[in-house]
């Protein structure tokens, strides 16, 4: 199953939790979008489908 995480295709990602773990160990200040829509943390364990695009975002310096 192919999942895109932050623009990179990855293997072995079954859930959003997996996707987050793949790019960061941080838990605070993290938000996730699945195919453009925000996914509340309570739903991070629901299974992903092939071709899903996951964005794992956090705070960076900005004006």
């Amino acid at each position: 199953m192919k999942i895109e995480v932050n623009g990179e295709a990855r293997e072995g990602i079954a859930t959003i939790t997996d996707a987050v773990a793949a790019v960061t160990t941080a838990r605070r200040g993290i938000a996730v979008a699945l195919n453009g829509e925000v996914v509340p943390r309570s739903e991070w364990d629901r299974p992903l489908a092939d071709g899903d695009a996951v964005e794992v975002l956090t705070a960076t310096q900005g004006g």
Partner: protein
Amino acid sequence: MPQHATARTDPTRDADLKIADKTFTSRLILGTGGAANHAQLAEAITASGTELVTVALRRVDPGASGSLLDVIERCGVELLPNTAGCFTAEQAVRTAKLAREAFGTNWIKLEVIGDEDTLLPDPVELLDAAETLVADGFTVLPYTSDDPVLARRLEDAGCAAVMPLAAPIGTGLGVRNPHNMALICENANVPVVCDAGIGTASDAALAMELGCSAVLLATAVTRAADPALMAAAMRDAVSAGRAARLAGRIPKRHLANASSSFEGMADL
């Protein structure tokens, strides 16, 4: 009397900045963009006396050293996420929702850009996004042009403040159109925050003198040769401008008005 003097000489004492449900003593909002590193940023935040700093939302960087949120927490200031980089209302709305999820705040600095060279806001997309976010319960602080009509429409849409630019982001050109800025301040019923384009202390003071309730700046401080010192300059400039506004300046005159009376001149 010294007590009185203190009160008099601290204009923020009797006039805190209120936006939506929050109250701030400082009238300077600092953007974190452009700082060379976290240490320098922390020093600038401290020197500025700000209580609110903006951040952007971006993909997590596995290689990032240290957390911006830790810096902000250590400085004891609040965080205001922005939607910088969005070109459509839809993108901005999604970004705002992600920020709410990530930071647990429904405050959002709404940016919807219409041009990548000037980073000037798109009036139509901006207003559209503002209406959507207000309806969704956000406290919306829109970065807008200095168009008094657009500012009015954003206020009518339920924005908690309006944030007209002094000049394009990062240009340091100062208040390009004081007349528009004054018109916005005269007509607004929400706080007016001068956002973007400030270059130096006198620019920030002028914005406050024109009637702004606060100033938001990033580049002017973070990219100055000495960010902490410029942060202190901006802190003082904002209170100076605010105090000057409240103190009631003298009228401008074409001819002189003697400060030393001619009365009693000796015949020498």
